[in-house]
């Protein structure tokens, strides 16, 4: 219904409105994206390939993928558990818990990084103990994982809670009354009903996990080839005035953003059709 052109918008009005909106989208959104691609390929495809194939860049790509591979599954488990508890049951403290789940969204990424330095840094609470036992958390991969986990924490839960609350628990009750066990009910009834919402949450969580900059920047230590994720590699190269190399790495992340938008649109279309 929303796609029907409204008769109220006259031709002139539509022209003005479209002009204004498309200029905003063009100038603020399309142009920055275009600049990334233009600068990335400014030195030709060969230079781009060299930049992306550079050992440091490759190790940054590997680290980014590894961190994401740890963080996303953990957040999926958390998101599903939190959504099950918060949407299928009513209990004391539920609304407090609901807002606590969203809390990481209100925390600036830099603060998200900072809190782990305060806990595990050399001058942090557990710093001495960790140094004595030769365990490195900050300025190392575990710190990057923790910081990324923190900033992406609510993504899956946030998609699932409203969806599962709206779906209610009648289908689960029906499954139980037909003799299904708890796990059978979850796997055969709940999971198929939330699959698109779950996928949507995973896509957003994945994009943020791969692209997180602020929080990771604080805890990483910027050790080339070791603790630089792809976004950090972009920063390091940019600050060294290696613009083409920096934009080459940035173009990979821009590609990730575009793929994310395409998948997101696809999931929206698909789930919208299922609901209809």
């Amino acid at each position, binding site marked *: 219904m929303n796609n029907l052109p409204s008769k109220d918008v006259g031709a002139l009005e539509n022209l003005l409105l479209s002009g204004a909106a498309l200029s*905003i*989208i063009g100038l603020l959104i399309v142009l920055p994206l275009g600049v990334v691609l233009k600068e990335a390929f400014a030195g030709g495809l060969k230079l781009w390939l060299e930049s992306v194939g550079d050992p440091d860049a490759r190790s940054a790509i590997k680290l980014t993928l590894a961190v994401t591979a740890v963080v996303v599954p953990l957040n999926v488990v958390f998101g599903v558990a939190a959504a099950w508890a918060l949407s299928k049951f009513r209990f004391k403290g539920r609304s407090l818990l609901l807002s606590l789940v969203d809390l990481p969204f209100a925390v600036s990424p830099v603060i998200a990084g900072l809190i782990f330095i305060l806990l595990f840094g050399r*001058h942090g609470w557990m710093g001495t103990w960790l140094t004595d036992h030769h365990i490195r958390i900050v300025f190392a991969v575990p710190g990057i994982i923790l910081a990324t986990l923190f900033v992406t924490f609510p993504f899956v839960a946030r998609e699932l809670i409203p969806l599962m609350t709206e779906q209610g628990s009648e289908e689960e009750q029906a499954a139980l009354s037909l003799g299904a066990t708890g796990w059978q009910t979850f796997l055969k009834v709940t999971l198929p009903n939330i699959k698109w919402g779950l996928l949507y949450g995973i896509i957003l969580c994945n994009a943020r996990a791969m692209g997180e900059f602020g929080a990771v920047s604080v805890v990483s230590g910027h050790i080339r080839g070791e603790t630089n994720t792809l976004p950090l590699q972009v920063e390091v190269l940019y600050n060294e005035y290696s613009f083409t190399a920096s934009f080459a790495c940035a173009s990979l992340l821009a590609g990730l953003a575009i793929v994310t938008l395409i998948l997101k649109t696809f999931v929206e279309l698909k789930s919208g059709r299922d609901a209809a």
Partner: protein
Amino acid sequence: MKLSLKEKSVLPGFGLSLGYTVLALSLIVLIPLSALVLRSSELGLAGFIDTLRHPRVLASFQITFLSAFKAALINVVLGVTVAWFLVRGRFPLKRLADALVDLPFALPTAVSGIALTTLFAPNGMLGSALGKLGIKVAFTPTGIMVAMIFIGLPFVIRSVQPALADLNKELEEASRSLGASRFQTLLRVVLPLLSPAILSGFTLAFSRALGEYGSVVFIAGNMPMKTEIASLLIITKLEQFDYAGAAAVAVALLSLSLLAILLINLLQARTTRYLGN
């Protein structure tokens, strides 16, 4: 009668799912955040206030809050325009435009940062054009605002868009049939009905801008007292191993943003009184 914390339910798995949720939340979010508060309290109240009263800290808060506020206001105008177009406009590639709106969400902030800097630098595509008009963007407070506009725009659009789509067409028709002009209808009927959505879009854009780091830090220039945002100051303090100072600035930034969000939510509650509850 037995006092129970939970209403009885036939669905299984409550203990397991709640237990896991609380455990994960505590380990990842609550315990680390409480470390922040405790660490800043090491300074004592006097030390805490002293840290925050330092001119460089005050300047960074001023630039952060002011830029975020201005950016969110501008985003209201831009966002409502785009949302209006996406709901009611006619354009062959509207679906594509709709999908592109989320790009600032999806694009890693470091990438947005270097892209905006390149665009608005004095020799950049937009920067050179604006420079001829005497407007400097990159490495000035304006640059900070531009980055905050970029990062906040989708929040306003995505808040207003569904509200506008759900707006009952009959209300506007009723207004017109009672003799109101199109402009009067917009001003007296449509905008008041959209105001809760606009306010929540404003809040989301504002609070995102307050904490934003990646897309701002490249374009800002990072001159202490002039273009240094609060997030960057936290990092600077950390690099000087002033952990307690960094924690104090972080606590102040976090509480001020929560306070601002709370105030706007109260305002929103007032504007939606007519909805009842």
